[in-house]
């Protein structure tokens, strides 16, 4: 009786959801963030429902299983435009973003009221590697550090500190490809001393993220500049949401998402910019560091390059953009803070261009040709690993500055092609 009463009460809690994003999975993220009754969590240990959104490549199925098995019982999985793994035949699948929240709430309620059993474990409950430590707790070797328990080296002093000379024990671990604060797909082996990164080695690149459909269309025929620029501003605002959430300003991030959802040529960024400044985003958050050298900035292109003062923007080649008075906005410094100033400037610029294009009778682009996407020039083939720059950029940075740097870069967006089997990855709202 008591349990059923507790269960009914637990069923009314906001549903803690761990979103595991595959290719094209981000489309589930933004409506979910704005939905009530659901709370997004960053650790699978904190979730009641695992939301697998988008296509997960076969070579990451083992990683998916490991995340799945980390959720404490009772838990359920929901597969959004994704095929449940073998062994999870009873898992629920949805394809309509509009029903996502209701499905998550229903799953949580069924779990708590006993109408649904917990999802089964997919992997044996045993260490991924054999015990190779020395002594009962891996402390039997020299200097009390013995062997490699469960395949992982013990935290120990193997290298000098690269920043301030204060040498601590080195801690090596792997993160990704579904760590929610890294771009989906990105996995890395990381060595830390304290929370200073000593080395960062990418193990798997971020999944390509397809852009708004209008960028595809613009490759084939002229499109309305207003539509193109609103899609660009929307893309940057969603990017800003992810960075603000990481910085502990989720409330402002949600305002950015709402602005992205309701964007029109008459929209303004002034209010959000003012609130960001007042809240101390540029002064207090971990935005120091992350400066790209000129070559890397040029290779990444887009706002990252322009934030470093590199004058590169294919819109300059379009006569109709020039007619609207377009000139690339350029920043200085090329670090994380400069990239966010740049993004905000480009959102304002896009809104202004959209407004002027409408005033000019809904001006269109001149035609197919060079296209500037929100993350740089259109590439026929996705950049194989835009995240490669992290290996040189992150060592020496503190953990939160490193994550803020990653969040400021469009590492996942080297491609404008849609995810497998899908026409468009991002849907304008």
């Amino acid at each position: 009786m008591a349990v059923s009463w507790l269960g009914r009460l637990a069923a009314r809690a906001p549903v803690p959801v761990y979103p595991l994003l595959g290719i094209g999975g981000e489309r589930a993220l933004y409506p979910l963030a704005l939905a009530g009754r659901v709370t997004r969590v960053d650790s699978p240990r904190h979730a009641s429902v695992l939301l697998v959104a988008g296509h997960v490549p076969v070579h990451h199925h083992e990683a998916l299983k490991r995340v799945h098995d980390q959720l404490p019982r009772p838990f359920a999985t929901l597969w959004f435009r994704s095929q449940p793994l073998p062994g999870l035949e009873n898992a629920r699948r949805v394809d309509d973003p509009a029903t996502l929240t209701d499905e998550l709430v229903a799953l949580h309620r069924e779990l708590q009221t006993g109408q649904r059993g917990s999802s089964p474990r997919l992997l044996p409950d045993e260490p991924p590697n054999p015990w190779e430590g020395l002594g009962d707790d891996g402390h039997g070797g020299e200097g009390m550090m013995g062997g490699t328990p469960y395949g992982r080296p013990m935290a120990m002093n193997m290298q000098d500190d690269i920043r301030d000379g204060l040498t601590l024990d080195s801690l090596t671990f792997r993160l990704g490809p579904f760590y929610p604060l890294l771009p989906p797909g990105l996995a890395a082996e990381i060595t830390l001393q304290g929370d200073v990164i000593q080395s960062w080695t990418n193990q798997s690149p971020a999944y390509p993220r397809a852009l708004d459909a209008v960028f595809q269309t613009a490759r084939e025929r002229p499109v309305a500049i207003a539509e193109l620029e609103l899609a660009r501003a929307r893309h940057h605002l969603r990017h800003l949401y992810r960075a603000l959430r990481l910085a502990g300003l989720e409330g402002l991030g949600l305002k950015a998402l709402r602005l992205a959802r309701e964007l029109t040529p008459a929209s303004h960024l002034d209010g959000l910019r003012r609130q960001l400044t007042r809240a101390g985003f540029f002064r207090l958050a971990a935005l120091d560091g992350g400066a790209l050298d000129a070559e890397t900035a040029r290779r990444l292109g887009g706002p990252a390059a322009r934030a470093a003062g590199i004058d590169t923007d294919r819109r300059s080649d379009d006569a109709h953009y020039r007619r609207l008075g377009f000139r690339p906005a350029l920043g200085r410094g090329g670090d994380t803070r400069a990239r966010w100033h740049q993004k905000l400037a480009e959102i304002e610029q896009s809104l202004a261009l959209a407004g002027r294009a409408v005033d000019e009778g809904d001006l269109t682009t001149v035609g197919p040709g060079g296209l500037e996407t929100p993350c740089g020039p259109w590439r026929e083939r996705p950049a194989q690993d835009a995240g490669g720059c992290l290996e040189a950029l992150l060592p020496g940075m503190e953990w939160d500055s490193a994550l803020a740097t990653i969040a400021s870069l469009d590492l996942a967006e080297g491609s404008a092609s849609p995810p497998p089997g899908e026409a468009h990855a991002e849907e304008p709202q």
Partner: protein
Amino acid sequence: MMAWAAMVLTFLALAVGGYAVAVADRLIAGACGWPHQGNAWLAPLARGAWLYRQDANVTEAPDRPAWRLAPALYLALAALGLALVPWSPTLVVADLATGVVLWGSLEALATVAIFLHGWSANAPLALIGGYRYVALGLSYILVSMFVLIGVVLPAESLKFSQVVAAQEELWNVVRQPLGLPLFLIVGLGLTFWGPLNLADSTDLAGGTASEVSGPPRLVWEIARVAMLVAFSGIAATAFLGGWLGPWLPGPLWLALKMLAVLLALAWLGRVLPRLAPERCVTLMWVVLLPLSFVDLIWAGLEAL
């Protein structure tokens, strides 16, 4: 008899205060743009029920006794802290002659409990959370103690009841204007809340609590809000005149002042970004610590 009444009042304050923090935090979040998450009054209870029913997971080779003990230890420290708070001249669980010193020792022991929580999970992100708190904890404690010595000077006693009695004519918040702002900022650090939540932060997927689920996580969350309640009790006692106030009974005055401090901390927690650890160290050692010296000198001159 009074001691028993004070004890009941203390536990009641821990429970009601903790619940009030959870509700206020949700209401403030709603006002700051978060989507509606259902009934704010029911949500903390529902979440508690969910955590209670969830399995307590284990990581690979954790230090299990320490992992399970840390939340209980942190909760015990919060309860001990609140036990030092006088609700009236006679209604206090432990009106120790060394009350202020004991609060300082609780702050130091909190560092141990928080590090234990992060370290014993045997997981990298939890460990980094623990490291961070240890790196910053000393600076919080130093500022906190200098500021508290400032309120001890006019009372000429380390007893919290004497600290309140010394504010009969003028509250310390007016007498030592730097004290309360400094103490509140340090309080955000001591309770790792909002902008100074570097131990259980988003960038670490929950930090020391990133690997915890079920009842142990419930205890940890209760302990965190309980510590916030205890801190607000000490702040109200040291700077806002404790039980002093017209018309209303002393305990009610103290409860209202604690609520005001809690609301201020909860609001700051929602509107400020998380500080970078390096910036936080600089803030503590270069700005707040010298300011706490100024506060102490001010208090000394004022006491002459």
